Structure formats: structure tokens, C-alpha cells
């Protein structure tokens, strides 16, 4: 087949003077269009808000823990759209959106270190180690806000007893899942990843320390630390590591992420304490999500009766 081609450039192809003289206007127009498009995207995001996140699965046979707080639970929507999960973005609305496709199946947690019976637990096994309890805890973030959440899980001590720590085990180190491919925003989080946390063994053995697999009657949403996380209700929220993959029993105090990032501001203990301010803000009060006025923060987040004895004789200003 013969392809017909126009011979050459002719005078009618010459850019009209008006058009090329308008290059600056064109560039300005381009700039304006880019801004408008970017602005519109931002606008629609701002109006409609972030997406809804993953759909949790209902958990059956959950028994009510008798010591739950009777305070009003924070709405599920708030607890799933106001998250600090830096692997999925540092903005509080980002994890709900970015954790949507986080793969949590299959999942296993490796328990190792100074234990007689190191082993790997599959998620199925973790769900069946003990009867699941619904525990409504207060949860206080170091940033000065708090929520009340019906977590589901059982005392972490159940798992500890199964692996039988040796006499050398003094601390427990937790490690969260980190895979840059699934968590591309992790590199710009400003903290070292994978996320690591730690507790003293006696803190870990306290019955309040919860191995958490769900909330609000169902499995954990991805942005809240699916499929299994820690909950230590008398400490600031960042102590409760999410999406656990490794639990290690160790002899010495393990490094912890926020302490590495800024030792001056985030201590190893990080117990909720209204009398010890964060260097940049007061910890005396907190804003309960859903309430307008700040309320006073309670010592040990109100769990002093259960945990104060762990810190007898310790200077809590020094061990913040």
C-alpha cells in the first residue's frame, strides 16, 4: 500500500508570530492549569475525606473482660481514620488509605531469644492460644490526645508462659513488619524502620499487657496494626507496637524506635505521666477524641492500681 505523505513543511506550518510570542502566557497558563489540577485533587480529597480502609472480619466467642472502663467508646470511624502508623504515611488520615492492600495473610510471629521453647506461631495458632476477651481500655497518645477502644485479645503473659523464658530474659523486644515494597512511604517517615519496641519482663507479664488481635468485635483493620499488635494501656501509644513479626526475649534493655529518633523526648519507659512534660508540650491534659475541652491526664493513664508497684522507688522524671 502506498502511504501518502505530505512533502515538506510549507508556509502554512510556520508558527504564527502571535503564538510564539505568547510563549510566556502559555507557560503561565500551563502553570495555572497544573495548580488548578493539583488544587482540585486536594479539594476533592478535603471534601470527601480519605477512603474507608480494609474490612475486618467478625470474631466469634469473645468474652467480656470484667474490668473494662465504662467510659464512652470512641467511634470506630475515628479510631480507623486517625492513625499514627508511619510505615503508611505520617499524616493521620493516610494509613486508612495506604494500608488498604496490606497483605496480612499468611502471617506468623517468631518468638525467640532467651527462651526454652522458641517457636513460630501462625496467626491461626495465636487466635486460639486463649479465650479472646474484649477489653475496653483508655489509650493515650504522647501527642496529647486519647481514645477509648474495645480491644480484643488476651494477656501477653499467656504467650510468655508457653515459650518459657530462661533466667537470663530480663526484657522483651518487639519488632513490627516492614517491607518497603508494601510500605513505600516508610523511607520518608523520619524514623528508623522496622519499628522496634520493648518492655521490661515484669511489665510484659502484667495482666493488663494485651496481645491484641481485634477491636470493635472484629479483627484489626490494617491501619490499626493488623493482624496482631501489643496494647500497653498505661504507656503512651507508641509503646504498643503494631503488626508484630518478631518477639525476642533478651538480657539487656532493647533499643526502641522513638528513643533512637529522639532520646531526649521519648524514653524507654514512656509511662503516661501528667507530671512529666514532653519537652515541647505539656502532658497534664489530653484531648479525648470526640470531646471539645481537654481533660486532665491520669497517672499511668488511670491504671496506677495495677501497675504503680512496677516502678516502686524509681524516679519517674529520670526514667520518663
Amino acid at each position: 500500500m502506498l502511504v501518502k505523505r505530505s512533502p515538506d513543511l510549507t508556509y502554512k506550518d510556520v508558527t504564527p508570530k502571535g503564538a510564539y510570542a505568547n510563549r510566556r502566557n502559555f507557560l503561565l497558563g500551563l502553570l495555572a492549569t497544573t495548580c488548578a489540577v493539583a488544587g482540585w485533587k486536594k479539594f476533592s480529597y478535603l471534601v470527601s475525606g480519605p477512603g474507608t480502609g480494609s474490612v475486618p472480619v467478625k470474631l466469634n466467642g469473645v468474652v467480656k473482660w470484667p474490668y473494662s472502663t465504662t467510659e464512652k467508646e470512641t467511634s470506630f470511624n475515628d479510631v480507623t481514620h486517625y492513625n499514627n502508623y508511619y510505615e503508611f504515611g505520617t499524616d493521620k488520615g493516610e494509613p486508612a488509605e495506604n494500608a488498604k492492600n496490606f497483605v496480612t495473610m499468611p502471617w506468623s510471629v517468631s518468638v525467640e531469644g532467651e527462651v526454652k521453647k522458641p517457636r513460630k506461631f501462625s496467626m491461626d495458632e495465636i487466635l486460639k492460644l486463649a479465650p479472646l476477651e474484649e477489653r475496653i481500655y483508655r489509650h493515650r497518645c504522647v501527642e496529647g490526645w486519647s481514645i477509648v477502644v474495645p480491644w480484643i485479645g488476651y494477656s501477653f503473659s499467656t504467650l510468655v508462659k508457653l515459650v518459657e523464658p530462661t533466667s537470663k530474659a530480663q526484657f522483651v523486644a518487639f519488632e513490627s513488619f516492614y517491607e518497603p515494597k508494601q510500605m513505600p512511604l516508610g523511607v520518608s517517615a523520619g524514623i528508623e524502620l522496622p519499628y522496634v519496641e520493648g518492655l521490661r519482663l515484669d511489665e510484659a507479664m502484667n495482666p493488663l499487657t494485651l496481645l491484641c488481635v481485634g477491636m470493635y468485635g472484629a479483627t484489626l483493620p490494617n491501619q490499626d496494626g493488623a493482624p496482631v499488635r501489643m496494647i500497653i494501656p498505661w504507656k503512651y501509644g507508641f509503646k504498643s507496637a503494631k503488626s508484630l513479626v518478631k518477639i525476642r526475649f533478651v538480657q539487656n534493655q532493647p533499643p526502641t524506635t522513638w528513643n533512637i529518633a529522639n532520646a531526649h523526648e521519648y524514653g524507654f519507659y514512656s509511662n503516661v505521666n501528667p507530671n512529666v512534660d514532653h519537652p515541647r508540650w505539656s502532658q497534664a491534659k489530653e484531648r479525648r477524641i470526640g470531646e471539645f475541652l481537654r481533660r486532665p491526664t491520669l497517672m499511668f493513664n488511670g491504671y496506677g492500681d495495677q501497675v504503680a508497684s512496677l516502678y516502686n522507688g524509681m524516679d519517674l522524671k529520670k526514667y520518663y
Partner: protein
Amino acid sequence: MNSLLTSKWTKVVVFLFCLVPLEMLVLRAVRGNLTANPIEFITHTTGDWTLRFLVITLAITPLRSILRLPQLIRFRRMFGLFAFFYACLHFSTWIGLDKFFDWTEMWKDVQKRRFITVGFTGFVLMIPLAITSTAGWIRRLGGKRWQMLHRAIYFSAIAGVIHYYWLVKSDVRKPLQYAAMVGMLLAWRLGSWIYGRGRRVAAGSAPGGEITTAETA
């Protein structure tokens, strides 16, 4: 382009556009869609827009020169006043919503928390600029003195960026973006000042030399 820039309607349209961030907040408030922590969201949004308008205001002079569009000056006061407007909203959110008029606690914060100290300073520096932004005040002060006074905006912008940088926990990307923008805009001024001085010296040393363009900072 010129007629577009000098039309009074453009000013009206730009004015309405500058109000969009506030409209967004009101719209979201009406819909009950101010995130789980509305006060924090309002504080961050108004703070963000204060910094953005400071950057836009500081960008006018370089853009006038680079794009050869001196008419852009028509918008500078408006942008500057919008920076002040959002700063006022930011500040009153802190007073009325965040601290709920707890003056003793606020005063403690201003003294004790350096990010609040520096933010407060940046805000206070903007007040005389907003007051003397009228034509009457330019006349009363005289162009030179007025210009000197209004260079305080450089310090407000720097204070705003530091305020933001000291506030964040670990992800400093956004404060650094603002720092880069403010830094570039101030560096341009420094550059054009040095360049302009060089030319003035050269022009002065050669008798009869002409100064072709008046440099403005």
C-alpha cells in the same frame, strides 16, 4: 496578559480564591468532616495557609522581575493581608479552641515551648505590617521607611518555618519544603541586591555611565 492583570475583576477573582481554604474548613465543619481531631485539623490547616500566603507574598517581587510582569505588584498587599488573616485564624484557634482562653497556660506555653515562642514572635511581627499596609501609611512613613519596616516579613516567614519545623515529631519534609521556598525567595533578594550594588558601583565609577534599570528588592 497585561489587561488581564490590571483588570479590577482579576483582583476580585483572586480575592475569592484566597478565601477558598476558609470555605473548605466551613464546608467540612458543616458536614462534620473535620477529621477525628477537628481542633488540630483547623489549627494545622490555618497554619499551613499562613505559610503558603507568606511564600506567595514573598514570591511577588521575584516573579515581577523574572516574568517581567511589574503589574503583579497589585496583588502583593492582598496576599500579605491574607497571610495575616490566616495567621489570625490560626492564633485565635489556639486561644479559643485549643486552650479555651486559659491565659495562664498560654503564657506559660509562650515562654516555655520554643516552637510556640517563635510562632508567636512571627505573628506579632506581622501586626504592624498589616496596620501600615494602607496607602495612607505608606505616605505617612515615606516609601523608604515603609519598605524597611515591611522587610519584617522576612523574619515572620523564617519564624513561621522554624515554628513548623520544631513542631513536627519526625517527618520534616513539609517544613523543609517551606524552608527551601522561603530560602530561595530570600536568596533571590540577596542576589539581586548584590548584583544591583555591583552595577551601581560600576555605574558610579564610570562618569557618564547610565543606570538602565532600577533594581527593586
